[in-house]
């Protein structure tokens, strides 16, 4: 049996629904040395900001039970340098390129998105869940009003397909998703990392300089899946689901919860070929269950 793994996310066609999550796959180069990454559906770039950022000081990673805390702090070369040095490489690959954009102020976001919008990229993922963003002391992705404002402004400056990446720390994730839809987002992706912390009890201080850091990995999967399910039931635009997907069974759960595409983040650190193996597993499952197209199971729960 031939399974059809193609998915259409708004107007963008993916050859399969597997996308590597922002910040865990760089700009694709490193993993391309390990396996044929063109078998994947797409890549989200490391979060880019208008200008280069060196990221956070101190420890940046900490292992927790079935999870990791990270505090990279958006280290990146800036959008211009990205366009200069990395985009060509990505463009030559048979992969959907999604550019993830973060920022500290609304103006920064607008300028970064404007610059990227002149380039040949397939999609923008607007990261409104970055812990370093300040807007009245609040990340853009926590409260409805600030989410509305940024999506509205960004929508004005780009014609590229626009996916808004939500934070699981949002006050009401369904409301925020709806607001994004109302403001013209073409899709939603979720979840980013959970605000969390660890303490070094011998040193009697927080492990991270920033005190809080972002939790990802299998630990968060049950919560992420619930959030993806809730959002999918409440918006009409397509959703990219993520959060702790480490094997094909997890991936199928997210698809059954309603996700059009799925993103793989932390799993790359467990197994660099995780994306490929998840893809193979989905194919096997579809064959076993005689599912011809992913559409048959999407949102079935």
């Amino acid at each position, binding site marked *: 049996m031939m399974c059809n793994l193609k998915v259409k996310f708004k107007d963008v066609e993916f050859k399969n629904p597997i996308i590597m999550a922002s*910040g*865990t*796959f*760089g700009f694709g*180069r*490193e*993993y391309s*040395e*390990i396996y044929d990454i063109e078998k994947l559906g797409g890549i989200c770039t*490391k979060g880019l900001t208008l200008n280069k950022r*060196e*990221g956070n000081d101190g*420890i*940046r*990673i*900490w*292992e927790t*039970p*079935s*999870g*990791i805390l*990270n505090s*990279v702090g958006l*280290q990146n070369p800036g959008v211009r340098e990205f366009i200069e040095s990395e985009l060509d490489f990505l463009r030559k690959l048979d992969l959907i390129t999604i550019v993830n954009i973060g920022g500290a102020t609304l103006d920064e976001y607008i300028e970064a998105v404007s610059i990227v919008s002149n380039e040949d990229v397939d999609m923008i993922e607007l990261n409104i869940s970055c812990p370093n963003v300040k807007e009245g002391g609040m990340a853009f992705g926590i409260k409805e009003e600030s989410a509305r404002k940024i999506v509205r402004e960004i929508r004005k400056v780009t014609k590229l397909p626009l996916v808004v990446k939500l934070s699981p720390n949002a006050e009401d994730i369904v409301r925020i998703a709806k607001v994004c839809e109302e403001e013209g987002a073409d899709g939603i992706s979720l979840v980013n990392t959970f605000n969390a912390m660890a303490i070094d009890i011998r040193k009697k201080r927080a492990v991270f300089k920033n005190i809080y850091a972002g939790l990802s*990995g*299998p630990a968060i999967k049950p919560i992420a899946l619930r959030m993806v399910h809730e959002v999918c039931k409440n918006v009409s635009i397509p959703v990219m689901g993520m959060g702790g997907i*480490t094997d094909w069974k997890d991936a199928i759960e997210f698809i059954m919860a309603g996700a059009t595409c799925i993103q793989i983040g*932390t799993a*790359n*650190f*467990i197994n*660099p070929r995780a994306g490929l193996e998840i893809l193979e597993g989905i194919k096997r499952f579809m064959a076993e269950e005689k599912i011809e197209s992913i559409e048959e199971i999407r949102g079935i729960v």
Partner: protein
Amino acid sequence: MARVISNKRILKDVFVLRAEGRFEGEMGQFYMVRAWDKFPLLSRPLSIHDIGNDYIEFLYRVQGQGTSILSLLKPSDEIKLEGPYGNGFPLVKGKIALVGGGIGIAPLYLAAKKLSQNEGVDLLDIYMGFRNEAILEDKYKKFADNLYININGFITDDIDFKKYDYIFTCGPEIMMKKIVDMAKDYNTKVYVSIEKRMACGVGACLVCSCKTKSGNKRTCKDGPVFFGEDVIFDV
């Protein structure tokens, strides 16, 4: 997936693990190692201690969860190795000292082996500093012109910097920093092997940043070996 050939305890908490297979790797490079499924989540970076046609060896100290699991491995058990990763030590000539502190001696064995085979290496001295007890003296001795062991003191005090063109060092940051500082007065180039917590190991996730004079570098990809004077040490 590789098979464990042997996993010998050489001190209470120090082991040499040998796995079967034809592996690649240069001195100073490392592998991301795991011998478990998804728990703990991350793989553990271990330097190549030795490599041959049909085996690879790691020298490791039991630190926490991951290395404890490694320490229980028995011959024929499975182990997952991804690599080789990182840049490794440069293949230099002239007069060289290798300086290891504690378990930091691990990558220096392959370095000694390779350098001793390299034409143009005029002098190869090895310095090893330990707390309480020395290990593997005989193993290292065979590649060294001189082997210096220091127990419970400062190995740095034993080094005659002016004798060397190059120093390769691995061990506690404080020791490596001291070597870099002391070498400044001479014409000695120091290469240090940096340890940082890692996730991907391949250069994609940016959690292993090492501060250098030219900005943040990825320890796993741009390192783990850095030119000593470039590094801005944490200590």
